[in-house]
């Protein structure tokens, strides 16, 4: 036995992989929300932030590659673990009853898969700037502000002005927060960092953080659709 097979081959090791990659992705989701909320500070602030990221490859690319690695590890462990879980109960019960297990805890795979599909769309929409998927017929890469920078602010406003796009976004962040309401406290359990003295506190933190994230993310398309951000 070596360390590699103990981590990537054992049940607990795969849960460690899932927990650590999940923790880092949670950190990204928090940072991304804070970045996006700058839309409420006006075009100058948001475009300057976007310009800073786009012109700082020494930050942008390590972050992108790191995130990609975390996503790959998170999805890989999810697929392996859930295949093993399905195989462990070949015959289902005739009477299916749920004891204690929360809705979020039972639907982690499904919420995760829908979020993954959304992330692909979201990247094509706002990172690759693929014109065909934004449903507004506009070319986002041609949007420039007065200083010649990529106009992230107008891209956001135009992007979310399509109700279907905004709705998909709202559903995805809703599912993301459902996923995190279970995941953020479970990752401590998987890493062995939970006990009865602060366990309930972690559960509350997970639910609270998920709610804040949902409100923060949902505020952007909602404000645009309501005409509060133009």
């Amino acid at each position, binding site marked *: *036995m*070596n*360390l590699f097979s*103990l*981590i990537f081959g*054992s*049940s*607990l*090791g*795969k*849960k*460690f992989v899932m927990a650590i990659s999940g923790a880092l992705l949670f950190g990204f989701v928090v940072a991304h929300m804070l970045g996006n909320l700058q839309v409420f500070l006006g075009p100058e602030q948001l475009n300057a932030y976007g310009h800073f990221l786009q012109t700082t490859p020494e930050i942008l690319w390590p972050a992108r590659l790191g995130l990609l690695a975390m996503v790959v590890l998170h999805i890989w462990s999810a697929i392996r*673990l859930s295949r*093993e*879980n399905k*195989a*462990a*109960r*070949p*015959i*289902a*019960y*005739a*009477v*299916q*009853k*749920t*004891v*204690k*297990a*929360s809705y979020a*805890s*039972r639907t*982690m795979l499904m919420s995760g898969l829908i979020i993954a599909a959304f992330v692909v769309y979201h990247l094509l929409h706002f990172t690759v700037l693929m014109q065909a998927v934004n449903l507004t017929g506009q070319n986002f890469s041609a949007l420039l502000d007065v200083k010649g920078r990529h106009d992230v602010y107008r891209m956001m406003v135009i992007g979310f002005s399509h109700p279907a796009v905004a709705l998909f976004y709202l559903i995805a962040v809703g599912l993301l927060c459902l996923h995190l309401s*279970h995941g953020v*406290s*479970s990752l*401590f*359990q*998987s*890493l*062995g*960092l*939970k*006990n*009865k003295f602060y*366990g309930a506190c972690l559960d509350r933190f997970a639910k609270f953080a998920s709610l804040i994230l949902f409100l923060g993310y949902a505020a952007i398309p909602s404000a645009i659709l309501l005409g509060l951000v133009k």
Partner: protein
Amino acid sequence: MNLTLRVWRQKNAHTPGEFREYEATGIVPDMSFLEMLDVVNEGLIARGGEPIAFDSDCREGICGTCSLVINGIPHGGQRGTTACQLHMRHFKDGDRITIEPWRARAFPVLRDLVVDRSPFDRIVQSGGFVSVNTGQAVDANCLPVPKDDSDLAMDAAQCIGCGACVAACKNASAMLFVAAKVSHLNLLPQGKAEKDRRALNMVKAMDEAGFGNCSVTGSCEAVCPKEISLDFIARMNRDYAAALLKGKFHAKAQAAGG
């Protein structure tokens, strides 16, 4: 009271099973669930039928032998209660009760409601013990054990190995059982010497038996007749991680190589 039972009948591990219905008549509310099944079986035997096979031994909730999923919940859903201690007063006259065996790939059905739980024995054989040299028993108080540790170890040691945790888990995971067995020895000074090896070996045996993984749903602790806490799974995860960080798997490989 009179009840209708829908019971899983299966001749042996290689024959497909099916549900069959039985009428349980003249049931007294003071009977335990198993005594109710005894009455049904006596009726079946009197009519020349094959009695329903189910596991039972002490019938006082301490041996971990009974193993019935009653209306979808292992041991029937009364908190901290095994099926043998579940009384018929919790049911109503005319109830229709579905009785199924534990369902897990690692626990194949041997007959009707009896499953093979020997994977649990193999997990215990892989590390659920303390290696001691024979000789005179040491004085009971020469090894100090902090009271908090002994209390916690006793909470874990309450596990009777019935397998309800596996039966209740949506992933048929045995984590709660293994965590209880790892923890109750790892908490005590007698067990500390083999702490790392125990965590690694018992988890390995668990994985090899084909149980699922933990999704932290908490179903296991909710149905556990001994109310073993989910905290022990976190403790096992911690012991396992610590063993990895200490590189204990290398030490073991060297020892095995002579």
